[in-house]
């Protein structure tokens, strides 16, 4: 891109072109204003939630983050339960989603015959196009019964008796709960992570890979020792992008998490997350303190996702620069 264009004078100042200068000036300001709207949207969102959540932070102080009580009737609110639910479901989604995404990206770029690469990639990206409420309905009506009939009984029988890990897999096979939510979330973030990984795997210089092959490396060794190390910044960026999505995902989780203010060690138990609590309770929150507490939860979610997404963006930009140079 030519830098000269940006600094080029709009027009010379001969009289007949005056309208041009004025038009340019007006156009410039309109366009800049629209750019600034985008910039202020984010700041305004943060400010409005801070304003809305002020009452809750003021009333409960630091205890809002560490307390477990959520009692709309008594007017006592603390957010640890939904925060815990958000973190656990997102962690499960990452544990399941990252390896699968990596596998898909490797399959598309290294294994699949050229003819089906585009089709497989497009199909996986289609997953990202399905509205999240559809994931929720499928999760509630199809996937949760499947989990409670086939998967969870096996997990409880096999893993339940093991001393430490067993606690994670104890209880009744309800279908809905942390584990099911984690899996549904994983399916939702797979297209985002795998498409980032695929895009960066494709631009690894072929000379690097060819030299490794020439030294006798197998295909997997090339992927593990050349492709992934070469693209690791962007790979981590893609993972963070997926994490940002998982943390804030609302509808799918609301359907399958069970919506009970409850912290349990077992992953089979229902719980709630920040987004699900907001979706379920906000429209019905009757008094100011209740609403303010929900807004405060929203602000916590916003700050966390902002940090995660900003980190993702920084890593992806760094990778893009490396590629450019």
């Amino acid at each position, binding site marked *: *891109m030519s830098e000269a*264009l*940006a600094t080029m004078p709009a*027009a010379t100042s001969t009289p007949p072109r005056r*309208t041009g*200068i004025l*038009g*340019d000036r007006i*156009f*410039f300001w309109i*366009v*800049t204003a*629209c*750019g600034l709207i*985008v910039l202020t*949207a*984010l700041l305004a*969102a943060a400010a*409005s*939630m801070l*304003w*809305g959540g002020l009452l809750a932070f003021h009333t409960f102080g630091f205890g809002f983050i560490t307390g477990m009580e959520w009692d709309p009737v008594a007017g006592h609110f603390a957010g640890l339960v939904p925060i815990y639910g958000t973190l656990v479901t997102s962690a499960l989604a990452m544990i399941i989603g990252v390896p699968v995404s*990596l*596998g*898909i990206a*490797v399959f*598309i770029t*290294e*294994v*699949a015959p050229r003819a089906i690469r585009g089709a497989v990639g*497009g*199909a996986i*990206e289609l*997953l990202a*196009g*399905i*509205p999240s*409420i*559809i*994931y929720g*309905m*499928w999760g*509630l*009506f199809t996937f949760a019964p499947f989990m409670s009939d086939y998967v969870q009984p096996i997990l409880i029988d096999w893993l339940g008796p093991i001393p430490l890990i067993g606690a994670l897999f104890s209880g009744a096979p309800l279908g809905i709960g942390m584990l099911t939510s984690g899996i549904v979330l994983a*399916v939702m973030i797979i297209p985002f992570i795998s498409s980032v990984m695929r*895009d960066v795997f494709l631009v690894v210089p072929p000379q690097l890979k060819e030299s490794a092959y020439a030294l006798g490396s*197998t295909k*997997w*060794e090339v992927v593990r020792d050349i492709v992934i190390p070469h693209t690791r910044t962007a790979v981590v960026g893609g993972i963070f992008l997926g994490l940002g999505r998982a943390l*804030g995902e*609302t509808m799918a989780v609301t359907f399958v998490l069970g919506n009970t203010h409850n912290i349990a060690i077992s992953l089979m138990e229902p719980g709630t997350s920040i*987004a699900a609590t*907001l979706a379920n309770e*906000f*429209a019905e929150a009757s008094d100011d303190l209740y609403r303010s507490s929900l*807004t405060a939860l929203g602000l916590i*979610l*916003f700050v966390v*996702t902002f940090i995660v*997404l900003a980190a993702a963006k920084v890593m992806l930009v760094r990778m893009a620069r490396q590629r450019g140079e």
Partner: protein
Amino acid sequence: MASSSTSLYRRRQLGSLIALTLCGIATVLGLVFLIWIIWTTLLHGLAALSPALITEMTPPPGEDGGGLANAFMGSLLMVFLAVVIGTPIGVLAGTFLSEFSRGKKLGEAIRFVNDILLSAPSIIIGLFVYELIVRPTGRFSGFAGGIALAFIFVPVVVRTTDEMLRLVPDVMREAALSLGIPRWKVTVNVLYRSASTGILTGILLAIARISGETAPLLFTALNNQYWSLDMTQPMANIPVVIFQFAMSPYEQWQNLAWAGAFVMTAFVLILSVVSRSFLNRKGGK
């Protein structure tokens, strides 16, 4: 000596084979979930499809019959409002990024913020618009819903407009400017014209994106059991009706939810596949 090196080589080959097979299994797993979800929607949705869907209103709980006419209309109105508000802002902001902020810090900052807005949780937008509009005006309204959707619509349009305009060769800008045409005319008559397919595709993609959004409407537009075209009142819309009906214990409501889900998914997927194929033909990614 020779045999041990062969066996090492075999072991490495075997390891590679296992790892790559696992990659294949991961891909199959992804495709299985895709087909499973679409199949479920298709199966339940087609069974519940009927003409009453677009001629009758949402029924009261426990009653037979009824459709989703008011919800379809509400969704249409709010998406339309979002497009009307969002398109000029999005296209112009994208123009700013690509044409007027090259090498400037402000442009970098806006691009950064826009990318974050693109992946930010949509329920946050709902909270924001609640504080911005619902609380000051004192009621849930179709306007609030449309504006909430616009906040999700804009970043998508900004991103595609920016990318598409940057694909236009600089030679075209220089040729037009050297004729003495003012810059705004160059932008409108030359750049927009040559990037029009791409920009339009971005708008279609953004429509696909907001048509399925539920979270930002939950506490902005809320819901309305009756036919209403009044944007200052709470307004029925497909996603929220699906949410309410699917979570209910009534079978008729659940069937309607599936029918709505089917129509919405078909619309969103077809729109995004068609516009993506345009985009791919155009170049870019």
